[in-house]
């Protein structure tokens, strides 16, 4: 029943009065740079990924922040570039800096993040909302960089915890031929070691058969190894992985980048008020919110939350506040989110989903940590060389 628009004509639409926030309006400019590369031909190309993933999340983050900002005399503006042309990224970032933008949400790959940081002066906040690369959280720390996108290790640890709680500890790993696939498979190996799982075999898929026709012939023999409890797929762009479920030699479940997947976000997440976020997003973009959208949304919301709490736009002050105990982000994952003050990584629960339902959410019960159970996912302080506080 939609009675409202009709009745509104008779109703008075009251606008807020700015009683408390009498100071001059605060203008907050946030830059968004998104690299949307062509991922090349994939075998499973029936359901394409949206080409504005990330951007729409940032836009919703701005809309949400402006609703709050109205009451505080804060106005948030997004300066967005979303491009398949890698050559545009550095000039566009520099141009935004020259125009006075100091707060950036970056949906970029590792090398692009490193390059952007190297190019810009220090008086900026850079939020990585694109790269899950483990190296950025351990060895190749980008000075001052915050990460709202989970590392691959957080994802694979989340899955490994769940597999451990099911006692499915014998894994067959299948990896694709992209560097990202190898990185995901490496991350799975690390998680296996942490959770006491045994890797039966790690096999690379390098056939060029069109599996849409022949999966039933190709995959059973490919997965004929010593017995495993679960097949773990590392195929980030979705080349062959979609064809692994139901085609394994043994009747076993499939998890990883396909099958049961650890994700930052998915349409099936609806608890803790997430239903409202999902419906706002769908209204804005006409599609479902995905992990990239969520990471960019969280990036913008992190900056806005820090501005709201501190009343400043000065990057140094915001950076210290975000990494302090005082910062908390309500982000529809059932608890407040904070940043790791060594790697700049946003701590967050990881949903485990299949395409139509939420299966679980990690950390699993019983995985304990002296500080917070969220730090059982990904790299703890002792495993990371980063010191995001000191080098900001």
């Amino acid at each position, binding site marked *: 029943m939609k009675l*409202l628009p009709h*009745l509104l004509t008779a109703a*008075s639409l009251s606008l*807020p009065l700015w009683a408390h926030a009498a100071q001059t309006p605060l203008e907050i400019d946030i830059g968004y740079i998104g690299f949307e590369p062509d991922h090349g031909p994939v075998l499973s190309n029936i359901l394409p990924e949206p080409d504005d993933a990330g951007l729409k999340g940032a836009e919703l983050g701005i809309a949400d922040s402006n609703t*709050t900002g109205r009451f505080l005399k804060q106005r948030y503006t997004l300066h967005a570039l979303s491009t398949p042309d890698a050559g545009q990224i550095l000039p566009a970032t520099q141009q935004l800096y020259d125009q006075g933008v100091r707060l950036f949400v970056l949906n970029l790959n590792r090398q692009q993040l490193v390059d952007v940081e190297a190019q810009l002066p220090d008086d900026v906040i850079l939020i990585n909302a694109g790269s899950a690369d483990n190296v950025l959280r351990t060895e190749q720390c980008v000075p001052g960089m915050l990460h709202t996108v989970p590392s691959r290790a957080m994802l694979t640890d989340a899955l490994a915890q769940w597999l451990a709680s099911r006692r499915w500890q014998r894994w067959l790993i299948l990896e694709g031929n992209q560097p990202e696939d190898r990185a995901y498979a490496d991350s799975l190996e690390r998680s296996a070691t942490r959770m006491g799982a045994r890797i039966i075999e790690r096999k690379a898929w390098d056939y060029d058969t069109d599996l849409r026709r022949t999966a039933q012939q190709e995959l059973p023999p490919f997965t004929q190894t010593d017995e495993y409890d679960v097949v773990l797929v590392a195929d980030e762009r979705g080349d062959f992985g979609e064809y692994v479920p139901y085609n394994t030699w043994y009747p076993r479940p499939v998890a990883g980048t396909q099958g049961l997947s650890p994700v930052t976000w998915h349409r099936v997440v609806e608890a803790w008020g997430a239903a*409202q976020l999902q*419906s706002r997003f769908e209204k804005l973009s006409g599609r479902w919110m995905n992990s990239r959208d969520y990471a960019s949304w969280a990036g913008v919301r992190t900056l806005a939350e820090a501005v709201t709490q501190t009343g400043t736009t000065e990057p140094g002050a915001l950076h210290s506040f975000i990494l302090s105990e005082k910062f908390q982000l309500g982000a529809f994952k059932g*608890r*407040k989110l904070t940043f790791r003050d060594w790697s700049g990584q946003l701590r967050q629960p990881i949903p485990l989903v299949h395409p139509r339902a939420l299966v679980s959410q990690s950390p699993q019960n019983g995985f304990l940590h002296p500080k917070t159970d969220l730090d059982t996912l990904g790299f703890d302080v002792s495993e990371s060389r980063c010191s995001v506080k000191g080098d900001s």
Partner: protein
Amino acid sequence: MFKPPFVKSLLLAALLASPVAQAATAYVSNEKDNTLSVIDLETLEVTQTIEVGERPRGIILSKDRTKLYICASDSDTVQVMDLATHKIIANLPSGEDPEQFSLHPDDRRLYISNEDDALVTVVDTVSHEVLAQIEVGVEPEGMAVSPDGRWAVNTSETTSMLHWIDTETHELIDNTLVDQRPRHVEFTKSGDRLWGSSEIGGTVSIINVASREIIKKLNFQIRGIHPDKIQPVGVKLSADGKYAFVALGPANHVAVVDASSYEVLDYLLVGRRVWHMEFTPDQKYLLTTNGVSGDVSVIDVDDMKVIKSIKVGRYPWGVVTLE
């Protein structure tokens, strides 16, 4: 089984005449069943289940206690139920996705949170007209009208603010920034203090209504429960002014707070994911709705003990009681 209709009506007449029908009653909204459970407060048992609109959440009584207002969130309406007949007698134009609401002391103006639309809708319960719509923050949730009728206070979950609405002009006068995800607000009987819970922040703020500033922030700690899982939602203040009860969501406990010293006195274990609460009319018991376990816990207020849990529908959300 076939029953001649006159037997049914005779039975109903007998029920209405019997003293059992006079016993105090609780109504509980079951969010995922689209029903209300009716609990007899003498026997503490469910006596009836009534079908209502989709996703019923907030429920409140009219001031004369003859009507029940029901936020049927997914039907985008507030339903009015006649408590004598249990029939829906009207659907109010609530705006989209009504979640919580509060009735002005004038018994006419209903202040409704429209969660999906960042609006508070004010509806006249007599003329069924929308009197005003007030823009508030993202995901408006909790609503309370002050005992003197001057203020309507709304909480917006994602904006983390309490919005102060002047009920004369229906203008937004002031905002109080609180901790993350404010869920519920409750005025003291005297109207000079407002208690507001922050679910993700894990705190309850006590606000001086005159200055609209926070004068005290309560924190909660329960042994063996991670601080992040202590998520205050419902707040109830006892009529004698002695206690405040705070429902702590997935911590599965209700905190008992001394309402004057603000000291946390005790934590009572209830059902899973406890959200809202109501006292029985004699103030002897406090009922809590436990969403995940699908039941209502009964707390004996004198002994501060949970004496019973009553199975209701799926995801019980709101609760009211009447004589």
